[in-house]
């Protein structure tokens, strides 16, 4: 009789345990220089438990299977000109933002999990990070492959890496990730595996991807869900690392809570982009940002933190602000991009009558009171041939780097929320308590922020004229601005053989 196969736990232990050793030529602290300075104390790395026990042989087998399925769908999407089955070409603009803003983060995650895969002292944690590093590379690659099909037919997707390094609005996701990467390994893994992946990325990869399917994008929903199938493992890693840290030493609890507070807020601010994708860039939305927030944050995270309460952890600071903002966020972010549409590498537009009515229905407490009057004014200005763009550059938050546009939703939603901190006699402006606290805990870090607007004024971005800066971003003339009348729009009309209902809709809006 053949030897009995080891069970799953034993197989995984065989893979991850006993492969490390106490170094003798160099002290352990020199070999692993990064995993102690944050103050996190680990007494016994062997207590690390991987809830997912995917050994290398099954890892490759299943990942290969996932890729095979995904590439079959991508190929058939391309061969059948799947873009023609989209609900509307406006949708593609969400994908432009995706490849410019999200895909570079996947690649950043790949690099940094590789770093963690070298620098944690415990072998179990190292193996988990190495696998995640490979996953993240797969995500970046599958996203590039899927979206390359759209790049053949639509503008704005031609140079995402260059743009990610330079463009004002892409400094928002980039600076969040770099903030995490320039922390120690425990801060990074709390940030990305827990605050971002466990607590928040469902909002991007579940309701938004479901929305992509609803709008006819089979290719994107497939890469989204394929990536997310890895994400479930990552989320579980995030939960494990949190529990592991607080179980290892009582001194770890306040540090872990601070990491959670900080990175929940940093990651949440980035998700403002997703809120706008969900409500405005999906031509037909099966679910609003607010509804998605209620399910994937409020419900899910209350359950999660009820569970974590036994370790002494509580909900992230200012989560109630984020929840109150859920009724405003997408509108404020979309209005901002509409204002600066001439300086973005995707198109913006005003919602049509049907969409505005949907927004009124989904946002009964806010849309008609605060946003409809603004959007109707924009439409009137557009009809009069004066499509509104701001002739100036925005003040940015020193921490999240988003223009200072968020309002004080808990007290007066018409007033901008602002905080100012003084450090070495200089002023630093932040968009609210969340970013202010982050700044004030480590001002030395954030005073170095590369704020795109200030960099332009310092002469570091190709010139002082907007057109020179856009050249430096490598924007092409048809990459941004108003959707109506754009090259993308015209091409779509030619394909569909319609003169488009936008103008009809506009006429109705003004007649009513």
């Amino acid at each position, binding site marked *: 009789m053949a030897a009995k196969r080891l069970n799953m736990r034993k197989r995984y232990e065989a893979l991850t345990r006993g492969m490390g050793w106490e170094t003798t030529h160099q002290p352990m602290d020199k070999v692993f*220089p*990064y995993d102690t*300075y*944050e*103050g996190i104390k680990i007494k016994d790395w062997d207590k690390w438990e991987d809830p997912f026990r995917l050994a290398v042989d099954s890892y490759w087998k299943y990942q290969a299977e996932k890729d095979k399925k995904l590439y079959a769908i991508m190929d058939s999407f391309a061969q059948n000109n799947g873009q023609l089955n989209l609900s509307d070409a406006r949708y593609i603009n969400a994908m432009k933002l995706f490849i410019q803003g999200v895909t570079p983060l996947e690649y950043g995650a790949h690099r940094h999990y590789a770093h963690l895969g070298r620098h944690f002292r415990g072998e179990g944690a190292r193996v988990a990070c190495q696998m995640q590093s490979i996953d993240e590379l797969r995500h970046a690659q599958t996203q590039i492959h899927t979206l390359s099909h759209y790049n053949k037919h639509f503008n704005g997707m031609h140079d995402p890496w260059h743009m990610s390094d330079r463009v004002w609005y892409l400094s928002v996701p980039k600076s969040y990730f770099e903030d995490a990467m320039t922390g120690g390994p425990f801060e990074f893994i709390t940030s990305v595996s827990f605050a971002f992946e466990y607590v928040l990325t469902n909002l991007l990869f579940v309701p938004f991807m479901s929305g992509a399917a609803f709008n006819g994008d089979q290719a994107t929903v497939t890469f989204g869900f394929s990536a997310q199938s890895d994400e479930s493992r990552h989320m579980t890693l995030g939960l494990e690392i949190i529990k592991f840290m607080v179980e290892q030493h009582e001194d770890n609890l306040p540090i872990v809570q601070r990491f959670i507070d900080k990175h929940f807020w940093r990651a949440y601010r980035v998700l403002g982009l997703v809120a706008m994708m969900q409500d405005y860039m999906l031509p037909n939305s099966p679910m609003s940002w607010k509804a998605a927030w209620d399910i994937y944050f409020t419900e899910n995270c209350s359950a999660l933190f009820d569970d974590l309460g036994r370790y002494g952890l509580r909900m992230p600071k200012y989560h109630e602000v984020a929840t109150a903002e859920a009724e405003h966020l997408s509108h*404020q972010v979309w*209005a*901002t991009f509409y*204002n600066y549409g001439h300086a973005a590498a995707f198109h913006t537009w005003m919602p049509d009558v049907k969409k505005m009515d949907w927004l009124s229905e989904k946002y009964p407490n806010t849309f008609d*009171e*605060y*946003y*409809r*009057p*603004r959007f109707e*004014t*924009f439409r009137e*200005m557009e009809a009069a041939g*004066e499509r*509104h763009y*701001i*002739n*100036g*550059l*925005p*003040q*940015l938050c020193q921490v999240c780097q988003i*223009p*200072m*546009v968020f*309002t004080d939703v808990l007290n007066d*939603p*018409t*007033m*901008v929320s*602002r905080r*100012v901190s003084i450090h*070495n006699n*200089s*002023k*630093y*402006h932040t968009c609210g308590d969340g970013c202010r606290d982050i700044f004030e*805990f*480590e001002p*030395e*870090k954030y*005073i*170095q*922020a*590369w*704020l795109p*607007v*200030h960099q332009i*004024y*310092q*002469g570091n971005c190709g010139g002082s004229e907007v057109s020179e800066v856009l050249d430096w971003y490598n924007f092409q003339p048809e990459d941004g601005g108003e959707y109506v009348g754009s090259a993308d729009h015209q091409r779509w009309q030619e394909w569909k053989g319609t003169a488009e209902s936008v103008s009809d809709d506009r006429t109705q809006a003004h007649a009513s």
Partner: protein
Amino acid sequence: MAINALKDYVDNDRDAVENFHGNQVVYIDWDKHRLFSGALAFPLPPSMPFAALVDELIPSVWGSHPLFKAIDWGDVEWILDDAPFSPDRAASLVENGIGHKSLLRFVTPGDNGIAGSGS
């Protein structure tokens, strides 16, 4: 608190006023008029007279707001860095106390934006 880092940390203020080629950054906002989504940033000479800011700079940017023409500048209230402020039109920004990264807001009493919506 001092930053927790492996090595000595260099205090590097990337936006020190010296980096702006003689200008200082001033933020300006029109309260409750979110047709302009937030405050704007301008690199301005510290010697610029306040009058030039009101008569030239502000109209060149906010002039496209449908309610801008109706502003009665005699009624306008100014807020500088969160405190009420009475500007001297003839004096320079610096003489008016408007420094690097100051936030200057103007408020139009009775006008709370389009249909009172804060836009």
